[in-house]
């Protein structure tokens, strides 16, 4: 199950479309890094609306994407975490404290756009 990654202006959008195996998740990490590098993207939205489970491996890997892309000067926003999934993540002990999240794709893109505005030099 490959995750399609689309370029939209200075940003990338990765839309997960079905349950991912661990192998798929690792591939997604690599693919995102490759595309970020190729397009010199400034921001990435990862849309997880289709995920009905985010276990510790997936959560950790998505946080990993946020960290890796930051090392290349790009921000990652995770969008579309389903309410039951968010509930389960918190019970599990995964808090995503250090990861940017937004309600949906639109809000995620707005967040990235806001980051690009002049006067904000933050990472």
């Amino acid at each position: 199950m490959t995750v399609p990654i689309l370029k939209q202006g200075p940003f990338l959008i990765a839309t997960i479309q079905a349950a991912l195996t661990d192998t798929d998740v690792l591939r997604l990490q690599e693919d995102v890094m490759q595309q970020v590098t190729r397009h010199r993207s400034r921001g990435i939205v990862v849309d997880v609306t289709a995920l009905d489970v985010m276990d510790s491996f997936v959560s950790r890997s998505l946080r990993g994407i946020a960290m890796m892309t930051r090392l290349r000067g790009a921000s990652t926003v995770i969008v579309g975490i389903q309410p039951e999934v968010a509930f389960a993540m918190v019970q599990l002990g995964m808090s995503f404290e250090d990861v940017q999240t937004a309600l949906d794709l639109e809000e995620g893109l707005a967040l990235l756009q806001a980051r690009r505005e002049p006067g904000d030099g933050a990472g």
Partner: protein
Amino acid sequence: MPAEGATVIAIESDSDVVTARQRARELAAELELSSTDQTLLATAISEVARNITTYARRGEVSVSIVEDGRGRRGIRVVATDRGPGIEDIDRAMQDGYTTGGGLGLGLPGARRLVDEFAVDSEPGQGTTVTLVKWSRT
């Protein structure tokens, strides 16, 4: 005791982990567990099934419907392997304890996601983790 024949899923690769949690979710939906409870159960299964592939290479997950004496029904999941076993179960149940470079949230996290939880393990013999999630109706 299982009220119906158990569904057994062999766990050998990471796609079996996905299969196992999906089967359990289907059964949980049949039992009319809430959508949230289905998700909690599926997440717990993902954790214990991944531990099988990580630490024991292979094993199995069996999913069945159980009843308590008072007409309440639930899903029981038994994850078994004949891998190396767990030396110190109390330690393994600590948040953050991992011997495999993980987050160490699998066992303690799974415990928080279900209603009943037990780990049986003998070093050199293997590990069995049992989870139960009861229907709330």
